[in-house]
């Protein structure tokens, strides 16, 4: 690394522009920091928060190792141990791994894309606060002695009311769902931003490989999280209101939880791995001093990996009694998922082999990754083979494998990335000797801890036992494992010390110290709130040296190199070509995300303490806050094309068809559709697999009400289309909006009456519970449709919607179309339930 001092821009234009942009973009001091919405601020906060939970989770892990170091240890009793290991797993997965990879994405993605911020800064901030509050609820429960104690995947029936009567499981279900709302909102934000907010000229084929990885990961999150959110909602409803989705004595099935959990859980491994692979694919070419080998092959591999990872969830359930033929689908899928992973590993190795590698600190961690991840991958292929899995299932072999793939895939690239981008964050470089020692301690400690677990597992040690007798031949291996754990912890402590030392005393470095080709280095370090004083054009001109382009951008010679109206401006581009097509004006700092997240926390806590009316009231307030937030978005008048620099003029995003909110709603509906599909899957699964079907009472839904509800939803959808057409042709739309509201109200009333008449009663049999859940889904969506229409009315009156600014109406149309389609499917299924039940009767 170079050690020269950053030179200030020599031109006063740059300084003047810097001051103007800081005045617009910067977060205020003191309490105003709570209003921050900037991706750099939120990304950094998220990183620090996730590392804090990593430290807490790590301490919990160490406590388990203390307990297991010797046989018959009295350090913890069984209940405490259950809470500690459950919280260790839950924290590491939900409060550290996912948020940490997201924090990397939040902090780096806009910079690497050459844009100034994400598309929805308030959503970024809301996501962060939700994460912080949800994680805090989980952590406080540990201090209160009521932490979750059923294992990090919270299997039913152990987590059902009968076996976990306290609030322990509720804390997990509500806290984790809270955190997942955060993850989902950030995922949508990331997808939209990568597709629509790159630097002009950055066509898809020129997009940095980092962005491809993050794009695919975010898309995976949008599809992977809803099944678990649905599972958590259903289990919480069972625990709170007695609807027996997972209770086999009343027509439910405990295995349904496992399916819903692992539909999320397995892709989650890749959701953690892919962003870290993005880090590796970014770092390795820089240190190999050549371009990444196989850019296109890697893009194909990550797309393949994304799909394959969704089709192998049952390999976590090989021992539950599924027929061999079906198991073989998942076994084969689990084996071939190694192929796209291997494509990436060979691409990295080829890059190193064909380049002129230089050895620096991040490369140590890259080496650590290769060693650990390949080992974990090999044991993964072993566990994909059904007969082997039957032997090793629920033993420490699986614990070892999981730590090698998740720990190895996460920890080593994470630290490589941290050391690589620290000069960007801090403007300073690491103290090499301390860092190297820290690496070796982490590496040796990691392998000592987890390699031994392969052996204890093969010797038959079950996972999750809190002690053992001492005559099982596990003693020495467990002791070594615990010693390794402490060595690893010392290593991580040294990393922390190293980081603190760097921030305080590290040598200052110049911009782009690694001579990297990505755009995040073409800005002052540490980065300013506006990221780029002007936005670069990716093309021949960006082939110039980093210093040259950075200074040119600082002088405002790119796009938007000026301040206008106090607006936070950035550019929207065509999805494939990267050609500028809209001017996006982003919202400025606001307390709204914090307030909304606080009210969300009230809703969650009220559910936890069984104050259901308070929770309902909080949900209504949240809905009101979202409508309120929408009132302040966009422009109250038409602007037409506006100059954005370099002789180009584009319209504001409120006046174009492909605005980010439209894409965001599509992402939302994909997530929502996945949740709905999971609900359909749950219904059919219970129909086909649950014991005690059919129940003693036959369902008899009212066809008139169901048809009426479907007709009302159709009328609302038609009214939305008519209102859009009316506005587009310059006529008034209020009448159609009002008609839509009436239709939705009618639909809600009819669906509520259907729910009230569900037979068997939803708390008596899963048949009634699933019917109520399907109908509830329709009612909730009609209710949200109503909010859309209320917002339309307010914004029409305030002048935010016009013949040219039709975005609001287009969003409403899309939502109501979706509500109609899912509503009809749900209602038809409810009407078909009697026939399905009769089919089962025929089978009997």
């Amino acid at each position, binding site marked *: 690394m170079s050690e020269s001092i950053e030179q200030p821009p020599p031109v006063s234009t740059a300084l003047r522009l810097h001051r103007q942009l800081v005045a617009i973009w910067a977060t205020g001091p003191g309490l105003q920091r709570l209003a921050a919405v900037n991706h750099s601020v939120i990304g950094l906060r998220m990183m620090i928060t996730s590392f804090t939970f990593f430290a807490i989770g790590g301490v919990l892990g160490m406590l388990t190792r203390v307990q297991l170091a010797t046989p018959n240890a009295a350090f913890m009793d069984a209940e405490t141990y259950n809470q500690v290991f459950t919280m260790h797993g839950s924290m590491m997965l939900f409060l550290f791994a996912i948020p940490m990879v997201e924090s990397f994405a939040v902090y780096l993605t806009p910079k690497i894309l050459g844009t100034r911020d994400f598309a929805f800064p308030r959503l970024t901030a809301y996501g962060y606060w939700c994460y912080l509050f949800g994680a805090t609820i989980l952590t406080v429960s540990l201090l209160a002695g009521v932490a979750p104690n059923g294992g990090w995947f919270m299997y039913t029936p152990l987590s059902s009311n009968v076996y976990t009567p306290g609030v322990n499981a509720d804390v997990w279900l509500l806290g984790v769902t809270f955190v997942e709302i955060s993850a989902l909102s950030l995922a949508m934000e990331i997808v939209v931003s990568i597709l629509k907010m790159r630097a002009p000229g950055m066509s898809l*084929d020129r997009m940095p*490989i980092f962005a491809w990885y993050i794009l695919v990961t975010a898309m995976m999150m949008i599809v992977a999280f809803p099944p678990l959110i649905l599972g958590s909602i259903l289990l919480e409803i069972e625990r709170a209101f007695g609807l027996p989705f997972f209770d086999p004595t009343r027509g439910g099935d405990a295995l349904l939880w496992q399916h819903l959990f692992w539909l999320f859980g397995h892709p989650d491994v890749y959701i953690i791995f892919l962003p870290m692979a993005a880090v590796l694919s970014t770092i390795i070419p820089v240190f190999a001093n050549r371009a990444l080998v196989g850019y296109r092959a890697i893009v194909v591999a990550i797309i393949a990996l994304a799909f394959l990872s969704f089709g192998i969830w049952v390999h976590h359930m090989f021992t539950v009694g599924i027929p*061999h033929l079906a198991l073989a689908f998942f076994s084969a899928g689990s084996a071939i998922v190694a192929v796209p992973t291997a494509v990436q590993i060979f691409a990295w190795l080829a890059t190193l082999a064909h380049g002129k590698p230089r050895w620096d600190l991040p490369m140590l961690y890259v080496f650590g990754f290769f060693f650990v991840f390949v080992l974990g991958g090999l044991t993964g292929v072993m566990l994909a083979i059904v007969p082997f899995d039957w032997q090793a299932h629920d033993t420490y072999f699986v614990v070892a494998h999981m730590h090698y793939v998740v720990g190895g895939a996460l920890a080593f690239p994470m630290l490589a990335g941290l050391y690589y981008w620290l000069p960007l964050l801090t403007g300073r470089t690491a103290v090499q000797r301390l860092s190297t020692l820290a690496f070796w301690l982490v590496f040796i400690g990691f392998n000592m801890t987890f390699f031994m677990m392969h052996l204890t597992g093969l010797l038959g040690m079950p996972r999750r036992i809190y002690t053992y007798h001492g005559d099982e031949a596990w003693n020495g291996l467990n002791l070594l494992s615990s010693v390794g754990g402490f060595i690893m912890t010392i290593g991580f402590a040294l990393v922390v010390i190293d980081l603190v030392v760097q921030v305080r005393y590290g040598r200052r470095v110049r911009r782009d110290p690694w001579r990297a080709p990505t755009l995040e280095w073409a800005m002052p370090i540490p980065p300013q709130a506006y990221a780029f004083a002007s936005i670069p054009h990716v093309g021949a001109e960006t082939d110039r040296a980093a210093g040259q382009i950075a200074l040119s951008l600082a002088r405002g010679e790119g796009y938007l190199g000026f301040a206008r109206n106090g607006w936070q401006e950035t550019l929207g581009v065509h999805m494939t070509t990267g050609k500028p097509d809209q001017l996006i004006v982003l919202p400025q700092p606001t307390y709204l995300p914090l307030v909304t997240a606080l009210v969300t926390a009230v809703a969650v806590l009220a559910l936890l303490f069984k104050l259901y009316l308070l929770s309902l009231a909080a949900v209504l307030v949240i809905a009101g806050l979202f409508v309120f937030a929408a009132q302040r978005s966009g422009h109250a008048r038409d602007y037409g094309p506006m100059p954005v620099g370099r002789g180009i003029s584009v319209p504001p995003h409120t006046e174009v068809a492909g605005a980010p909110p439209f894409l965001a709603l599509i992402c939302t509906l994909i997530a929502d559709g996945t949740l709905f599909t999971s609900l359909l899957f749950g219904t059919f699964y219970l129909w086909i697999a649950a014991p005690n079907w059919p129940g003693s009472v036959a369902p008899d839904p009212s066809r008139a009400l169901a048809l009426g509800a479907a007709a009302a939803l159709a009328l609302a959808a038609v009214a939305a289309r008519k209102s859009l057409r009316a506005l587009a042709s310059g006529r008034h739309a209020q009448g159609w909006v009002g008609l839509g509201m009436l239709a939705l109200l009618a639909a809600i009333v009819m669906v509520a009456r259907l729910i009230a008449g569900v037979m068997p009663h939803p708390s008596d049999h899963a048949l009634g519970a699933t019917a109520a859940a399907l109908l509830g889904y329709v009612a909730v969506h009609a209710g949200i449709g109503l909010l859309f229409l209320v917002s339309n009315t307010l914004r029409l009156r305030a002048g935010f919607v016009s013949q040219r600014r039709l975005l609001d109406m287009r969003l409403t149309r899309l939502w109501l179309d979706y509500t109609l389609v899912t509503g009809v499917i749900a209602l038809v299924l409810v009407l078909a339930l009697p026939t399905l039940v009769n089919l089962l009767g025929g089978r009997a």
Partner: protein
Amino acid sequence: VSAARQPHGANSARRGAAQRPHSPPGPPASGDHAGTRAVPPRLLWWLAAGFGVWCSALVFLYALHAIGCVFAWRPGTLRLTLALVFLAHVLVAAWIWRNAAKSVPDAAFGQTGNFVHTAVVWTAIAAVVATIVTFGPPLLLATCI
């Protein structure tokens, strides 16, 4: 010297030896290489088409197998039904591959069109192979044990 402000390795296959270290292949000297027409975003759905068929095969085969076992279909009937569903999916996936491979990317789409075309063809190939390997051999196993 820093390298270009471009992605790592984009279009690396065409990178010449004369280029700077770790500099990805750049656009033509004139700058923009996006072509005269924009690649329609809807074409990106084809990136998911092949593996969409793979997902569909998984869902239908798994569901049909469960239904067949629950309703005690005869093993021969169940296996034949599964085989037909499998074959239908292989044919659709293969059609996507053939369709993508035989089409020539529109020159007006420039290098971006070329890139999308290559990625679509190779994801389709990967999907066909994955469909055959994942769902073919298991159909030889005992049906409902």
